[in-house]
C-alpha cells in the first residue's frame, strides 16, 4: 500500500497581508479583518482582538457586565457552530455524508440567532473594541434557551451516528497519534492539544473576559478507542467541548438576565488612542490559542499587529505525524486537526 515516506507541508502562498493592513487602519476598523482570518469562528476572533486593544489601552475595566456576558454567550455559540462544521466535514472527509447534513441543520439555528442580533451570518464584527455593537434582541434569552434544550440531546445522536460508528472508529482510532510531549513541543493548542491528554485551556489557566465566573470541565483525550492523542480523541474532544459550551451558555444566560438596561458599547471604543506600548493576549478559539500582538505608538493607528493563528501552528505538526502513514490516513489526520486555511495564510 502506498505510504507517505516523508511529508513537507506547503501553505498556499496567498498571504492576504492582514497584518500589513493592521498598520493602516484604526483598531475598530480592523475588527472586520479579524473575521476573515478564521471565518468559522468570527466571534472568537473579534473577541481576541478587542480584548488585546482593551488591555493595551486600559479600557478593559470599563466594559459593562452585560457586554461581557453577551461576548461569552456569542463566542461559545460560535464555538459550537465551528465544532459542528469540524465534525460534519470530518465525517465527510472519511465518507460519512449524513452527519454533515445534521450538523449543518443545527448550525443554521445558531447562524439565525447571529443574524437576528447583528445582521451577519459569517463575518460578524459584532464583538468590537469597547463591547458589542448592539444589544441582543428582546426575546434572545428565550430563543437561545430553546435552542440549547433542542441541541443538547442531539449530541448523543451524533455520537451514535458517527463517533461510535464502527467504520469511523476504524478510520480514526490509532491513526495520527500525537503524544503529549510532541504536542507541547510544537505548541499545539485547542482540541488538538487536549486530544493528546493535556488539559490546558486558556479559559481556565489564564481566564479572560469574565470566564473565571463560569464552571466547566476541560475534556481531554483518554484513548478510549485506541491510543491517547489519536484522531478519534481529537474528534471526540470537540464533541465533549460542545456539551461544556452549552453549560457555559446556560450560566451566562442566567447572569445576563440580571444586567438588563446596561450599556453594551463604550463610546471610547472608536476614538481611543493607543499608548506607546505593546501587548500580547491569547484566547481560546475553537481551534486553539489565538493571540494578538499589538504595538501602539501614541497615535490612533497601531504600529504593528500580529496574529498568532491556531491553525497555522497546529498544521506544523503534520510534518511529524504525516511520516510513513497510509495515504488514506493523511486525510484523517489533516481533518482531525481542523485547519481553516484563511487563518493559516492571514
Amino acid at each position, binding site marked *: 500500500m502506498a505510504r507517505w515516506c516523508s511529508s513537507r507541508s506547503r*501553505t498556499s502562498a496567498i*498571504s492576504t497581508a492582514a497584518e500589513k493592513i493592521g498598520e493602516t487602519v484604526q483598531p475598530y476598523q480592523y475588527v472586520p479583518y479579524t473575521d476573515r482570518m478564521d471565518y468559522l469562528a468570527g466571534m472568537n476572533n473579534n473577541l481576541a482582538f478587542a480584548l488585546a486593544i482593551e488591555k493595551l489601552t486600559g479600557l478593559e475595566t470599563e466594559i459593562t457586565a452585560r457586554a461581557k456576558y453577551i461576548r461569552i454567550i456569542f463566542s461559545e455559540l460560535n464555538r459550537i457552530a465551528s465544532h459542528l462544521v469540524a465534525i460534519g466535514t470530518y465525517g465527510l472527509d472519511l465518507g460519512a455524508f449524513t452527519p454533515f447534513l445534521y450538523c449543518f441543520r443545527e448550525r443554521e439555528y445558531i447562524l439565525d440567532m447571529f443574524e437576528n442580533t447583528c445582521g451577519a451570518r459569517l463575518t460578524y464584527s459584532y464583538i468590537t473594541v469597547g463591547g458589542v455593537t448592539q444589544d441582543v434582541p428582546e426575546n434572545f434569552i428565550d430563543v437561545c434557551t430553546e435552542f440549547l434544550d433542542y441541541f443538547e440531546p442531539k449530541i448523543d445522536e451524533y455520537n451514535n451516528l458517527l463517533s461510535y460508528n464502527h467504520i469511523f472508529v476504524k478510520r480514526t482510532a490509532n491513526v495520527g497519534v500525537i503524544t503529549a510531549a510532541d504536542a507541547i513541543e510544537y*505548541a499545539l493548542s485547542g482540541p488538538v492539544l487536549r486530544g493528546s491528554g493535556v488539559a490546558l485551556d486558556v479559559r481556565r489557566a489564564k481566564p479572560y473576559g469574565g470566564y473565571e465566573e463560569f464552571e466547566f470541565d476541560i475534556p481531554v483525550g483518554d484513548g478510549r478507542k485506541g491510543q491517547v492523542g489519536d484522531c478519534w480523541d481529537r474528534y471526540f474532544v470537540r464533541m465533549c467541548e460542545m456539551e461544556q459550551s452549552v453549560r457555559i451558555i446556560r450560566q451566562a444566560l442566567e447572569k445576563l438576565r440580571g444586567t438588563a438596561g446596561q450599556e453594551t458599547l463604550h463610546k471610547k471604543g472608536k476614538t481611543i488612542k493607543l499608548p506607546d506600548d505593546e501587548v500580547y493576549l491569547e484566547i481560546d478559539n475553537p481551534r486553539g490559542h489565538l*493571540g494578538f500582538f499589538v504595538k501602539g505608538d501614541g497615535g490612533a493607528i497601531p504600529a504593528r499587529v500580529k496574529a*498568532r493563528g491556531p491553525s*497555522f501552528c497546529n498544521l506544523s505538526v503534520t510534518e511529524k505525524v504525516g511520516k510513513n502513514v497510509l495515504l488514506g490516513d493523511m486525510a484523517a489526520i489533516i481533518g482531525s486537526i481542523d485547519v481553516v486555511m484563511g487563518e493559516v495564510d492571514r
Partner: protein
Amino acid sequence: MAPEEIADLLKKQFSDKIAGFTFETAHPRIEVRADAWPEVAKFLRNDSRLQLNFLRCITAVDMLEDEQFVVEYDLFSARMSAKSGSPWTITNEVAIAVKVPRNSATIPTVAHVWRAADWHEREAYDLMGINFTGHPDSVTDHDGTHPRRILCPDDWVGHALQKDYKFPMEYHGIPAVTEHEQTRPIH
C-alpha cells in the same frame, strides 16, 4: 515566577548577555543579545525552576527610526497539576526580546530548542526578512542561505511587513495596475 524574578535568575546566570528589561508595560520582556540567544533559550527551557516549554509566538517588529528589528518570543510554562484530573496551569509567562540592526538582521535559530519555532521563524523571515541562521529548513538562493519562505511564493522579492517595503508593480507578467491606470496600494 514573576518576570522580575526570571530576569534576576537570568542576570545571575548570564550577566552581560542579558541586555535589559522592560517591566512597566502590558507586555513585560527581557532583552537578550542575539549571539547568546540559543544558549539562553536552552536554559529557559531546561532549567527546573523555569521549564518554559511552550513557545506561543514569535513576533518580528520593524523599528525603522531606530534602524533595528525586534524579535519577541512569547513563552510560558505549561505544567501538569499535582492533582490528577485537574487542569494544567500556565506559569512563568514572559517575553524575550532580541534586537538586531536592520542592515544585518541575523539571529541564531532556536528551532532545535522549541520545534514550534520552525514555522514562526520561517514566517518572520518571509514577512520581515530576519535571517535565522542554522534553521533546519533553509534554502540557498540569490538572497543567500535563509529559512524557506512560508506565506509568499519562493521567488517573491522583498519582505512585505518591512516599513519601507515597496509593493511590486508586476509579478510574473501579472501587472498590479488596473485598466484605469490605478495602482493599488497607492504609494
